[in-house]
């Protein structure tokens, strides 16, 4: 087992994957708690589809993938919040609308340029080979920024998640912080989606939060637990992917499912014995 680990880390692409994966899973776990509690779980899914469209266009135009995708997805995130806020189109419909549109655009662009090939497969389901070393640098810097902003605004994020009206009434600029959460989520998703895949990246947002909520009963412990769970699941998932040559994204999700089941049982046991 230990030999396998050493062997795994002797490949630079694996080191890059673990490094970026750890940062992304940390960010998505923190943001995920707020998104799940605010009933915005699907926003991750919607944004990753937009990311897919943006990556397709970037590839077709020979532009740097992250440099195109990040601003586009940030824009989509802000737009989604604005649309959800207005009463004309409801949040879930807005997400479905934007994500399918972006998917369609992406598929059209790809079929007109390279045709449906392994690239598309990699976009959809992720590839552990996706990260170049310049991507890694950008990912680490951006993830660090996400983490720092999250810690600085932790108390305000708690307040607007728990009770937006009260937060507004006491002078917390809830719209600003909602936008902040959306922007941070957008950045996190774009960074993670090429490894995890457009269809699977939103699992990183949802699973750790739900898992830790089975057992934890304070906001702080939920946050810390989901960060820890997320990183452990990612690491185990990538190891599984390396050892058995399974797709990285799907492996991480399977490990997350296992963690959710374990925590659900643990939560049930805990409640029985302590109530």
């Amino acid at each position: 087992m230990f030999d396998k680990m050493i062997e795994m880390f002797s490949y630079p692409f694996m080191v890059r994957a673990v490094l970026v994966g750890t940062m992304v899973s940390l960010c998505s776990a923190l943001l995920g708690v707020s998104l799940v509690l605010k009933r915005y779980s699907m926003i991750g899914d919607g944004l990753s589809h937009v990311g897919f469209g943006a990556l397709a266009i970037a590839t077709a135009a020979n532009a740097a993938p992250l440099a195109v995708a990040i601003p586009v997805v940030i824009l989509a995130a802000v737009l989604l919040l604005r649309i959800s806020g207005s009463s004309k189109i409801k949040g879930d419909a807005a997400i479905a609308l934007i994500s399918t549109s972006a998917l369609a655009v992406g598929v059209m662009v790809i079929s007109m340029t390279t045709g449906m090939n392994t690239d598309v497969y990699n976009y959809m389901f992720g590839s552990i080979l996706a990260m170049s070393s310049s991507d890694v640098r950008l990912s680490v810097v951006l993830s660090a920024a996400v983490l720092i902003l999250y810690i600085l605004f932790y108390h305000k994020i708690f307040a607007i998640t728990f009770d937006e009206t009260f937060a507004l009434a006491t002078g917390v600029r809830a719209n600003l912080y909602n936008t902040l959460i959306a922007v941070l989520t957008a950045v996190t998703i774009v960074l993670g989606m090429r490894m995890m895949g457009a269809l699977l990246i939103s699992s990183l947002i949802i699973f750790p939060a739900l898992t830790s909520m089975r057992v934890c009963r304070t906001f702080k412990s939920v946050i810390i637990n989901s960060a820890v769970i997320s990183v452990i699941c990612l690491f185990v998932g990538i190891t599984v992917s390396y050892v058995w040559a399974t797709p990285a994204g799907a492996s991480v999700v399977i490990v997350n499912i296992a963690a959710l089941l374990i925590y659900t049982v643990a939560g049930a046991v805990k409640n029985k014995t302590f109530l």
Partner: protein
Amino acid sequence: MALIKCENISIAYEGQTVVHDLSFQVGEDDYLCIVGENGSGKSTLVKSLLGLKAPAKGKIILGDGLSQNEIGYLPQQTDVQKDFPASVYEVVLSGRLNSRGLRPFYTAADKNNARENMDLLGIRELEKQCFRDLSGGQKQRVLLARALCATRKLLLLDEPVTGLDPIVTQEFYQLLRQINRDSEIAVVMVSHDIESTMEYASHILHLQETALFFGTAEEYRNSEIGKAFLGGEQRV
């Protein structure tokens, strides 16, 4: 000088005027109840008092050093809170955010204030418990403690006893009166529960798009409109 003074305000909601030409004021130590039927504009008025919705006409003047973000608001509970993992302490402490401004973390003074307010409302021993596991009455106490953290002058409560059983409701009202008297904090409460309201309130605002009545509780009891409304309620 009054804490809140409304002068001929009109408030529109989605293009329709729901409150018009409303004037009233809240003085220090007052206990004002806003009564009225559903759709009489109570919730809209609350939003305007909180500064979340500017009146279309007229002025809301805050006095006595009360600033807009220092109103201790106790909102109706939302769906999100039913399964929200947060400890009582975390919820109460979040009431101190308005004094933080842009500074990111709480100080020892903030934490002490949160504990004092939990002591005052007798929920200190629940400190570490999860908010969603509490009973309805305990939840309201927690939200009241949070509101007290946010203010030193004025509490604004929106239908605070909805869903509470009669005994807990009475306890809650008594707690509120005690805070009103001992801590000298003015209370503005929107309520359906007209009978108990009459027992505790010092002033009544009867809202039906405009003020059908504004004055002391005693005057309201003897007024035509008051008699009709109170009588009507009792028959139900």
